[in-house]
């Protein structure tokens, strides 16, 4: 009987994982196994303890990665960025708010409307040109906008949202 139950649980869990999990997520996030590089708080449905959703690099990458090529104001020439789409991360935690307050390692903070992530393929980049981003090189996470694909993104106001060394997000 418990076996059967367990089997059903596994099936249900699989069904959720395959069908519902990407959209709504499960009731809880898995615990991070490696070093936590991103902590999400605030208006989120899914956490992995203390009302926080903590991600290690592996957890993030498991959400599915995307690659975009764009120029930046801090680099020479077009760069290839790889990472998780911001919208996927926020979906994974069941974020319900309108904006996020993103905070860097040096406590730099910026507010970004959630609509940016719906409109554009905003990336929580973990790699640049195939190389993992480190804290010394704007890592571990750099918020990258597809600047070259959209004219309206090529300005100072948007540049201010290219937050690097992202470590915390508060959904509001």
């Amino acid at each position, binding site marked *: 009987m418990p076996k059967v139950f367990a089997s059903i649980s596994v099936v249900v869990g699989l069904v959720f994982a395959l069908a519902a999990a990407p959209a709504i997520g499960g009731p809880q996030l898995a615990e991070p196994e490696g070093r936590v590089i991103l902590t999400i708080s605030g208006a989120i449905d899914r956490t992995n303890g203390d009302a926080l959703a903590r991600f290690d690099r592996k957890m993030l990458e498991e959400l599915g990665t995307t690659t975009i090529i764009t120029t*930046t*104001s*801090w680099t*020479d020439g077009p760069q290839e960025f790889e990472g998780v789409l911001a919208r996927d991360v926020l979906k994974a935690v069941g974020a319900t708010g309108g904006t996020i307050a993103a905070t860097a390692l*040096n406590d730099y903070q910026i507010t970004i409307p959630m609509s940016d992530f719906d409109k554009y393929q905003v990336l929580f980049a973990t790699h640049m040109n195939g190389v993992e981003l480190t*804290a*010394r*090189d704007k890592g571990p996470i750099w918020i990258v906008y597809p600047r070259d694909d959209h004219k309206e993104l090529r300005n*100072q106001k948007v540049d201010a949202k290219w937050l690097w*060394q992202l470590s915390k997000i508060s959904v509001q």
Partner: protein
Amino acid sequence: MVVATEQDQRPIARAKSRWRYAILLAANLAFSVSLLVGLVGLVQENRKTRDISPALTYWSAAQLSLEYSRFLTALSVYTAGNGAVARDDLETRLDILWSRIGVYDGGVVGEKLAMIDDAADAVAAFAATLRSVEPDVLALEPGDMEAFDRVYGQLIPHGLPLYRMAQSTNLYEQRAAIEIQESTIRTFWVHTAFLLGIVVTGGALVILLIFEAKTTTRSLNAAQRLELRARESEQNVRAIMNTAVDAIITTDAKGTILSFNPAAESMFGYEAGAAVGRDVAMFIPEGHQDAHHEKMRDYPEGDASGGPRLSGQIREFEALRHDGSTFPIELSLGVTDGQDGTTHVVFVRDITARKQTQEQILHSQKMDALGQLTGGVAHEFNNLLTAISGFSEMALRDPSDAEHVDHCLTEVINASTQAAELTKQMLAFARKQELDPRVVKVGDIIESIRSMLPPLIGPNINLTLDTGGEPACAKVDESQLKTAVMNLAINACHAMPGGGDLSIKTWVVEADEGLASRFSAVRGASYVALSASDTGTGIEKEVLERIFEPFFTTKEEGEGTGLGLAMVHGMAEQAGGFVDVESEVGAGTTFTIYLPLCDEPQAQENARDFASIGRGPAGRCTILIAEDREPVRELARITLEKAGHEVLTAEDGEKAADIYRERDGKVDLLLTDVIMPKKEGPELALELLADNPNLKIVYMSGFISRDQAMREIIGKTGVFIQKPFDPDELVRVVEELILGTPEGHEKVA
């Protein structure tokens, strides 16, 4: 003229406005292009500055300075070993610091930062130091103050340069911002100027367009109005032409008829269709054609003053109807020079009725005057008859005293001569004549009636005649002028019932402004003036205004017809003159007749030389006298017998014819009275002439018959001698005829 001028000027105006359009349009385009270029430049500039964010560069520089300080603090706290800063924290701070230094490595932000004075050097120096101390930092253990001092001592000197770098970046960005601001202001003004240029030139273009549209509309309206007015004017002219009582004919310069109104149709008896296109000369009687053609030929050069010529001047002519009859007309001519050449507008008035009325008035006037004259003449005649009979009786009383008889008969002859003169003038005056204006000396005419005036005006009026000075001629009917003067004299006489002074004088005057404005006188033209001034009662103003109206009279019934002054006025107008009257109540009145001055006519009558004619040179002739009045017959018989001729006498025409037959026609000359019992003079003459065409005839009469046929016979068959005649004159006439002088003593026509 206005339309022509507008039409002439329109192309010039259009060309001018085209130039204005071109200039304004070019200016507008230039301003627009400049603005466009400027704006494109501005956008590009803006894009450049947007890509290189000034705030971002300053922020990056400031962040480096901040992270430097935070790292040193973390280093101090970590070395102190109180656990407030863990090794991970220190390493994170070191990573952050390195990431800040990395900003200077590339990208637009890095490039910008590298351009700032000393910034690149300061950062490079700091990076080098950090790299050299990094192993010591990573090996640092809490409480190792020596190692800390070594690291700290190397890092601390970079604090100021990094701070200065942040400051320099800030200043640099500020300067850049100010430059951008100033450039923006400059650009703003330049672009505003361009915009203003566009607005001004565009506005001017719009205004010009509106103005031109309005002007076009206005000139169109003006043209429409002009056309409307021209059409109305044409309709008016047509209405005038169709309803005018006078004939109105227009011709071209050559006299070809262009239009012919209904009045002209009825006046001349031609349909308009038949008259238009023909020469206007067709209305001129045969005898006047040459004069007409001469005038038409000379006319274009006749007046150099330009404008309408001859307008206002009214002339009288004879005109020819379709049926061949002639009639008197009054004609005035206007000339206009239009686009199609010169046009003559001829106004013609049929004055047949007026002429007849005038003649009637004139005649009745003469009768009036004659009636008045008769009384005076009878009185005068009685005086002369008294003298004649008295002196005759005195001569018979003592016929032996030759000296006495001679004296008495001389007085008789004087009185008879005066009486003859008086009757002659009366007859000449009473004679009904066709109006026959001729160039005459006005003074002579006045003189010729001098003797008639005293009996006319009576003894209590003192008459002064002044016809002196140069002889002045006017073209006037002699009889009319005489009547006019006599009428004026009669009027003066009535104005002075208690006696007074009447002054009649003639002189030559040039029409001044005053006369020209009051009458239809031509300024500067010369006139013969004839005035009659009295010292009578004068005329009141109300009366003065109507004084020339026919049948207007202030006299008692039977005293005047009211035609006197009307006749004077008519006479003056017919002669092309006018009458002026000045009067002051209680002081007197002056009538002045002004007649256009004419040149003196050349004497046409051939003065005959009678010097060779004396008693008897023609030899003895047989002369038959037919005269019913015995004294005249006797006088003629004695006179001619004394001249050496054989004389036969008869008391009437029939007896004269009998005597002629008894003498078998051996008669050289017949001297006959015109009006006789049984057979009149001309009839007798024709009868005898039928027998002897060479018979000479002399008619004598005190009265010229009104019978035109009789006058013609007299003129064709013989010569005429006016009774009473001087015996010497009779002998001269008779002998001249016998000697074969072709023309008679006096022609009767």
